[in-house]
């Protein structure tokens, strides 16, 4: 296992991502934050917590989106569905989608389809912790990137989260 980000680096990166989102969405007046289930929400939880530190008085519209029913590989394998939790309208809002690893782009394709069933957002941006460059199967690019890496198809990138896995780091696994 080769480490991509240690727990210390991860914390700094998440802080930076939160600040970059804030930079583009001062006050988050017309912006909503949506984490993608199941593993994107650990990142979005932390980014939202960081944003709240900067804007303590602000109520941030934050939701969680599950894309299981929108996947394009249902006939290969069924995946367990997770809770979707979007208790506000996204009509005319700017949406920041958050996921842990961007690889083929298929998850984000499904997420965009799922998102549009909640209304017509003014703009959708993508924030990811790890961008596996040159491996995209759809024309999808992130707006905020924690770290870009070059990887082989045979390699797997795994993000561990304290809440879920008891440790926090990003590694290559084989």
């Amino acid at each position: 296992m080769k480490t991509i980000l240690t727990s210390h680096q991860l914390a700094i990166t998440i802080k930076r991502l939160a600040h970059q989102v804030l930079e583009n969405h001062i006050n988050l007046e017309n912006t909503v934050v949506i984490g993608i289930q199941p593993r994107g929400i650990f990142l979005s939880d932390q980014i939202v917590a960081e944003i709240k530190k900067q804007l303590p008085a602000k109520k941030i519209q934050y939701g969680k989106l599950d894309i299981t029913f929108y996947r394009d590989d249902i006939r290969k394998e069924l995946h367990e569905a997770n809770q979707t939790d979007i208790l506000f309208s996204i009509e005319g809002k700017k949406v920041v989608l958050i996921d842990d690893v961007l690889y083929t782009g298929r998850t984000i394709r499904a997420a965009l389809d799922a998102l549009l069933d909640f209304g017509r957002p003014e703009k959708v941006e993508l924030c990811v912790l790890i961008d596996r460059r040159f491996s995209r199967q759809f024309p999808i690019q992130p707006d905020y990137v924690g770290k870009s890496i070059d990887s082989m198809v045979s390699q797997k990138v795994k993000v561990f989260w304290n809440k879920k896995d008891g440790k926090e780091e990003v590694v290559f696994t084989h």
Partner: protein
Amino acid sequence: MSLSSKHLLGIRDLTPADISIILKTATQFKEVLQRPIKKVPSLRDVTIVNLFFENSTRTRISFELAERRLSADVINFTTSASSVSKGETLLDTVNNILSMKVDMVVMRHSASGAPHFLAQHIPAAIINAGDGINEHPTQALLDSFSISEKIGKLKGTKVAIIGDIMHSRVAQSNIYLLKKMGVEVTVCGPPTLIPKYISQALNVNVSYNLKETLEWCDVANVLRIQLERQNQVLFSSLREYSLAYGINRRMLDSLKKDIVIMHPGPINRGVELDSDVADSRQSIILQQVENGVAVRMAVLYLLSGRNPSDN
């Protein structure tokens, strides 16, 4: 992740893990049904035929809505408007429909075991929407879903099933399901409408006293008297049945706690349930109907995973 069976013929064949997956997936579909666009694309490559050889309002509409909400292509079939009345056999009818590339069959039939027979002869996934006096699995699933939604859990809950147990596929499926999930079950009704060895066979309590049963239970699932399935006199009149086993407001008010009232529909008002009970805030009858769509979406979704050709 998938179910242990390719078909949903009855609750009897499901494992507790299967039931948990279905109920959990139904929770997610219930959320889908609250969205501005209540539709997901999961089954857009699937064609489903609804074969109803017996009358139905709720189940047929509920299945059809579930199918359409999953983006499946839907064909409806009712016996009266088909060649069945010209003498075509069940297997011929279904094989002809399947040759038009249909992937899943939802079937209701008045003969117990009809879907099991089909499952042995055709490759498509079959979902039993009620077969004779045998099983009605999706009704039991939506009943349990509604109980756990209302009470917050299934295990350890006390459920009474009241009425015509003998002729009720809803009762049988409910008993199988509730026992698998660790629920205490009492069946209650006139002795002539309760199978003699049911307590040994299905491990349920039997009571002939409505008041005692209502005192005991957290949830009362009240069934309709199935006059269409009775070919002998098992009670003297509907009025007499209603006096002994009909639930009215006064009776509910005399209990020490608020119990939950359920009914699979159609209700015979004034027979098994009085109107002021059926429409009271203790009744979750309409929530059951609402949950039916989500539960059926979950079943269809979980059974659609496999390609019919690879068996």
